[in-house]
């Protein structure tokens, strides 16, 4: 303003304010430096609401019912509530409520594939499935036995020199088999594996016996 101060008597406006029909005596409001009040005084009171007609009343009820239905539906997602520091008895029942919602199975062909939640394979519990493992072992045993038998018969035919050794081996194997059967029985009686030797000599490395039990990293 100082630069323009050529001394016209009136204010700082650069134009003739009378063009806006503001007279000499009028008070021009100063530019406000404060934000307008948050709750300005209500000059005109609003007129009261019209009474709702019966059909409007039914629509209000319809709406509330419908919203409630949505709230109970699988289309309503809520945040997981923070776990309380102290576990309360009532919590168990509250968490159940969410699961009680009826299931909704979307038609996946209508949606992008990425929206489909991936099914995680069940993680292995860390305990080897002994029974299954042993059952496969058992068949191996039988096979090896059969092989041995074959060999032995062949050997017998060839000559009786190595017969003794063979017989000893056979006996040994029989004994092993017996022991294992006993183990099996023991296992069925009580599900513990104390009497099982966990030492792995690395022979079975690479065998895909327990494919199902491997953890999946995906």
């Amino acid at each position, binding site marked *: 303003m100082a630069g323009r101060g050529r001394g016209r008597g009136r204010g700082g406006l650069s134009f003739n304010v009378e063009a806006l029909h503001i007279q000499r005596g009028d008070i021009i409001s100063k530019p406000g430096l404060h934000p307008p009040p948050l709750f300005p005084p209500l000059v005109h009171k609003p007129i009261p609401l019209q009474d709702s007609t019966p*059909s409007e009343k039914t629509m209000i009820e319809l709406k509330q019912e419908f919203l409630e239905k*949505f709230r109970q539906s699988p289309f309503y997602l809520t945040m997981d509530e923070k776990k309380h520091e102290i576990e309360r008895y009532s919590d168990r029942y509250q968490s159940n409520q969410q699961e009680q919602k009826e299931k909704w199975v979307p038609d996946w062909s209508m949606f992008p594939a990425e929206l489909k939640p991936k099914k995680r394979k069940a993680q292995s519990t860390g305990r080897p499935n002994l029974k299954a493992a042993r059952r496969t072992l058992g068949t191996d045993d039988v096979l090896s036995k059969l092989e041995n038998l074959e060999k032995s018969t062949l050997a017998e035919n060839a000559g009786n020199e190595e017969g003794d050794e063979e017989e000893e081996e056979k006996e040994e194997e029989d004994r092993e088999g017996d022991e294992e059967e006993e183990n099996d029985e023991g296992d069925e009686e009580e599900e513990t594996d104390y009497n099982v030797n966990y030492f792995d000599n690395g022979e079975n490395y690479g065998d895909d016996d327990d494919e199902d039990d491997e953890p999946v990293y995906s």
Partner: protein
Amino acid sequence: MSKTDLALLILRDFHGEIVAKIGECIVLSGCATVRQVALSTGIPQAKVKRAVLILVQHGIAEFEQNKHGFIDYKVDVNKIVYRLQFPKIMRCAELLYGDPAKFMVEKLLFEGRATMKSLIKTETQRLNECLRAQGDSEVAPSLLEERFEKLVKTHFLKRCSVPIKDARGRAVSLEAPSEELVFVMPPKESGTERVKQEGEPPSKKLKVEGEVDHAAAADSATSEIYWEVNYKRFLQHFRDQVLVAAVASRLDNEKAGEVLRTILRHCEKTTNPNEYVSQPISYHEIQAQLPRDLGMAKQTLEQWLKILTDTMPEFVSKSADSGGGMYAVSIFQALQTLCTAHIESVVEERFGSKSLRIFRVILMKRQVEQTTIEKCVLMPAKEAKDLLYKMFREHFVHVTELAKTPDHAPSRTFYLFNVDLQKVARVVLDRSYKAMKNVVIKQRLVVSENKRLRDKENRKNVVIASLQKQHSDLLAEHGEGITDEMKEEWEREVDAIKSMITHHEYEQLEKASKFIHHLEASQQQLDSTIFLLESYLAMTYKPPTPKPARDPLGR
């Protein structure tokens, strides 16, 4: 902006906090991938996926593959705001086609979309359960099927968008069904073919009936067709109802409204909903289509049409004399008139009747200088100026500058005041949305404040109901063996439970429920204003017309 805020509140009411947050994220960023949403909201991806799934299922979100190969999701705010109309839509379906239609529409609104088969199956079951409870006889699925067909034929239901699959069979984007297929029922399987049922209201017939049977046959064979509610058609119906109600209340006669309704019903079939003026209909056609039970004589109809065209030329006009007189409804003009009336009453309530006088002068004279206004409204110049500038500040009045010289010097410029109805309508609409938002927030607050009490009352009711059932069972079992003393004992038990809620708490509950009802009612009335303004503004928006192809010879 208020509209978006309101939409997010609605989303929260319907789908919970997570979906609202994700909706907000997508709306604010225009479009986003699942990963982007998860990153910016901090919600785990599994939940984001679930939420997006819900949004897509309900037709709120659409998806499209972007150039990087990811799938972008977009949210349509309008589709969320349509949820305010849900009760109206259900009620409308009920009034038009009865309970079966209401049940089906309700289910479609609830699930977003459904196939016809599953819809009819579940809803027949539900309807029959209801009927059984009321002691009425059950209905067959064929009734629902017929109603479904009617709803589709009258365009109240439409086919959903179909996903486009990429080479590996994954859905990558959505495609609206082609125009001639949207409202076409799939051909019936040969086994279930029935005799076509008559008795359909004469006005509700499909425009393009029977045109595209071969295309439909090809389509339905390939896949299941999903159906959804056609909101636009319902809105159009509501709009026509508003016009009818306006005429009926202006002329203070239901019959006048019925005449207009008949014309509008005819127009539904012949006119594009966005057309400013409907196709003319001849006097004889109106007479033929007028509901019989109205019992209107020829002469009376003629008189009503004359009154309509004379007193309300902005609604109905006579376009020609052939065929006993051709009549057309100028829908846009009518809406504009209603809208102006609404805005005028807003001005009156907000700024006072003196301001309304100024406002009307400007509306009448279109472009007017300040001195002229001061003279016309017969008010002291100072007061008029004060009121005028107040309205100007609130964007109800606009100014056109007309400079005499190119330097736009204020002293050599005319300032012409004018009212741009569309702009004002937008201002009022925005405020209405804001008001609606405030009402919704207040309502939620009241509900949450009284949640504990309401729960308590619910529990009390449940306990009392179970006690009473127990008692009546005992009574039925032992019959005479129950003495009066025992009955008294029971009553005392019930009373004890009733007294669990104190008198003071009762009062509070009563107060809260009254307040909530009040808020709901104000939402409804706000909604009617919003609806009118929206439909007026929707008509003013014309999609840009494609440029005519240039003549290759340059002629």
